[in-house]
């Protein structure tokens, strides 16, 4: 499955994977990131039921220092 994560092309080997699995698979703490799929924010409580689809454009965002 070919998708884009944070602007980069990614090929996923898994047949099906939901957003929760995608995030935890990257070693990220779900409470500390936000996700957008095709420019739509997906609330954290829905991650386990939203499955990644071919050509999805996914943004995984977190907090950094700033002024």
């Amino acid at each position, binding site marked *: 499955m070919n998708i884009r994560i944070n602007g980069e092309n990614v090929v996923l080997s898994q047949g099906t994977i939901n957003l929760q699995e995608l995030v935890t698979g*990257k070693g990220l703490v779900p409470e500390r990131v936000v996700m957008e799929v095709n420019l739509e924010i997906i609330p*954290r409580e829905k991650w386990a039921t939203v499955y990644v689809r071919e050509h999805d454009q996914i943004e995984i965002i*977190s907090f*950094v*220092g*700033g002024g």
Partner: protein
Amino acid sequence: MEVEDILKIGDVEINNRLFVGTGKYSGNRMMQDVLVAADADVTTVALRRVDSSAPVESILDYIPPKCRVMVNTSGARNADEAIRIARLAKASGAGNWIKVEVVADSKYLLPDNLETLKATETLVKEGFVVFPYMSPDLSVARRLADCGAAAVMPLGSPIGSNRGLRTKELVEILIHEIKAPIIVDAGLGKPSDACICMEMGCAAVLVNTAIAVSGNPVEIARAFRMAVQAGRRAYLSGLPEESIRASASSPLTGFLRDDHKSA
């Protein structure tokens, strides 16, 4: 007795009028030490794409619990991008305080006031508590306040320049004319700069670079805190008027000489 002096933003009471940014520190631990030393009640963070190669730890875990996070929209080049970032911030659970920062100029990082106004209007309607960072312009400040901005944040000088309050005359006008709190954000380079802002009647100041890149961030954070307190207290005391002529501090009678006719 301490004078009770609280900045109210909605229902939130803020004791410390020094807001501290979280950028440019040598590490999260240093940033945390600075927030503690400053005794900060309000801080700000930015949102960025996750860096897969970076450590998983989150900057949020280093922010003291008493410190309220105002997510900023840095990186936004127009109103739509700022709105998108604000919605992401809300979805993250970071609350609804948002510093709208729309910058389309990479050399001076000066804000785009018109896009800032557009973003502020939309975000206020969506229930955000909005702190727009802006170039000190009276008309724009009025419109920002009228549409419900929680405060107006004029710049002192370009972000990270440490050049101090170069916009003093204009900020002074905002303080006199705008009912919303005026918070000077950007460019303050020294505690004395922060003190001047507070003496003038600013509600608060936001400082980041001056602390983060100083020789001793923790010590200068304390100095900034004291300067903000000093300036605020002076403002509340009612500063004396300036005059061109001298006015003797000692009595003008009883001189130790014979010809004490008044001049």
